[in-house]
């Protein structure tokens, strides 16, 4: 193992240990609350990246799946009369499945379009779902919202802990899936679509099936995270879960960390979400919060359009080249090069 590998391994183990033991290290609810949301966005950004990063299809409508997952769980709990506690967590995969079904429908239509049109169609679908949640008053309670049962016997410092581990588990699941896709032939096909879809089709990549599969996987993960979120906040209404800001936040985190990389979304979420919560906490009362958020947003995109991870990787590679020009991990290097290649510019 070379030195970077060792550093990476140590960093990973360290991060894992901190993530696992966090409720013991910092048990106060204020901290674990931030941890729940950060783990949530690690999962969301990673899941979004499976579609947006690998295939280059930018979806701004992933909040549709988030909201559907949230509403699914809320309705399941209400209709099945499930007692609060650990039970509701078992229904989270069902919410994921429903989100996946919705994604098959949306994807089937939206993926007929490319590039800019796809972006717009996903936004339109998100607002369509929000409108449905508002209009189907008999099912969803409309604008009045929907309450979820909350576990009364979890209290004090412990209250956030089960939610934190649920979010962490989903984030790890998303990372595992993303990692697996990245190394599979399927993942290679997705990257080929990103680089040049027509050529990919010409060499035999089943582009439509691949795109749809990536879209559905990404949506299912987002749906499950949305379900846990609903259970955590215990009250949802249409604009709150079908929230364009949630949809754009995961995108921004991926861009900040590095589009199409495995670790980029994690880095982006770890940096941005705590900051975002701080902003909201300090300036939430006034709309200045939005102004600050948009300023961060602009600085990230205009100064670092490729994201932190690819930029850092380049920096390291440049430092090393003079000393160690040789066979240091050639395989991973070509992979890295293909990951960091910017999308085909117009």
């Amino acid at each position, binding site marked *: 193992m070379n030195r970077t590998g060792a550093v990476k391994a140590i960093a990973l183990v360290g991060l894992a240990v901190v993530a696992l033991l966090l409720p013991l290290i910092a048990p106060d609810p204020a901290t674990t609350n931030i941890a729940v949301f950060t783990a949530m966005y690690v999962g969301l950004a990673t899941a979004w990246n499976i579609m947006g990063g690998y295939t*280059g299809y*930018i979806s*701004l409508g992933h909040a549709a799946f988030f909201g559907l997952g949230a509403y699914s769980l809320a309705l399941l709990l209400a209709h099945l009369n499930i007692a609060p506690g650990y039970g509701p967590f078992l229904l989270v995969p069902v919410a994921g499945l429903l989100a996946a079904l919705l994604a098959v429908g949306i994807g089937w*239509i*939206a993926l*007929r*379009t*490319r*590039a*800019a*049109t796809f*972006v*717009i*169609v996903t*936004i*339109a*679908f998100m*607002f*369509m779902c929000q*409108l*449905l949640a*508002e*209009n189907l008053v008999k099912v969803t309670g409309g604008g009045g919202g929907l309450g979820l049962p909350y576990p009364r016997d979890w209290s004090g410092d412990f209250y956030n802990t089960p939610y934190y581990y649920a979010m962490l588990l989903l984030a790890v699941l998303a990372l595992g899936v993303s990692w697996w896709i990245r190394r599979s032939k399927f993942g290679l096909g997705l990257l080929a679509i990103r680089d*040049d*879809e*027509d*050529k990919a089709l010409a060499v035999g990549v089943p582009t439509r099936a691949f795109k749809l599969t990536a879209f559905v996987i990404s949506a299912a993960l987002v749906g499950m995270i949305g379900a846990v979120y609903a259970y955590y906040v215990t009250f949802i209404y249409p604009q709150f879960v079908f929230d*364009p*800001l949630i949809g*754009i936040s995961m*995108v*921004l985190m991926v*861009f900040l960390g590095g589009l199409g990389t495995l670790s980029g979304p994690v880095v982006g979420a770890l940096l941005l979400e705590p900051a975002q919560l701080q902003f909201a906490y300090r300036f939430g009362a*006034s*709309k*200045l*919060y*939005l*102004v*600050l*958020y*948009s*300023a961060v*947003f*602009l600085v990230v*995109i*205009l100064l670092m*359009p490729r994201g932190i991870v690819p930029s850092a990787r380049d920096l390291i590679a440049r430092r090393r080249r003079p000393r160690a020009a040789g066979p240091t991990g050639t395989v991973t290097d070509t992979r890295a090069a293909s990951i960091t290649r*910017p*999308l*085909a*510019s*117009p």
Partner: protein
Amino acid sequence: MSLVLEAAILGILTGGVYALMASGLTLIFGVMRIINVGHGALVILGAYLSFALFRSLHIDPFLTLVITMPAMFALGVVLQVVLIRPLKTDREALSVLVTYAMALGIEGVLGYVFTANYVELRGWYETASFAIFGFHITYVYVFGFLLCLAILGALFLVLYRTAFGGAVRATMLNRTAAQLIGVDVDRVSALAFGIGVATAAAGGVVFGITNAFNPGSHYDLISRLLTIIVLGGLGSLRGAILAALLMLVIEDITAVVISPVWASFAFFVILVGVLIVRPQGLYGVRVRERI
């Protein structure tokens, strides 16, 4: 039946505003290949500027355009130079994010200055109406429609009868080729963005007189405008105008025949229908990446 007809007339009259706003959006797309997600926020900003002038100086909302349109034009040029021009690679995706950030920034500033309360622009024509063939039509819709028609006409004159318009259309057709024959595409882009933003200001006034609005209104607006330009075919002015009229007529008829809560939903249903049959939109060309 007469109710449906009345809804159709109202749809055409309000469709004019959407046609104007959507033309600005599709013009920006056509020239720069970027999606201006902040267009809705710029419309609302235009409405608020007129509202501020109207409240402090008691100028008629329509007359405030003399001040707001040039101001918004200048703002548009600045925004293009500061936010859009620096994007070199992957413009389509990055521009969405940048303009989204711009929208959030505008929403934040407006919320800070004007609070989240709903406001409305007012004039005598807002409630006064006249009767024609037994239909009662409020003056404001007619004035708004005429204003939009005039500005759209001016836009077409500029695009099809001036040298600058030729440069704009050349850039829309093929950016590289336009550059080769000596078109300063950077300048054209900045000015086109300015024009798009100026039309947003005009749209904002009409929108503000016919609707109550608050800083968050841009989400609803932009989802409609984006749907319209996708329907019309991205980058097609004619398509945007036709789609806007079509959508608003169908929306208003849905409101009468079915229920107002489903009116906006009709919008999206049409979008889905059109995408299944014709993914490139009414007047669009199929997107193929250049090899």
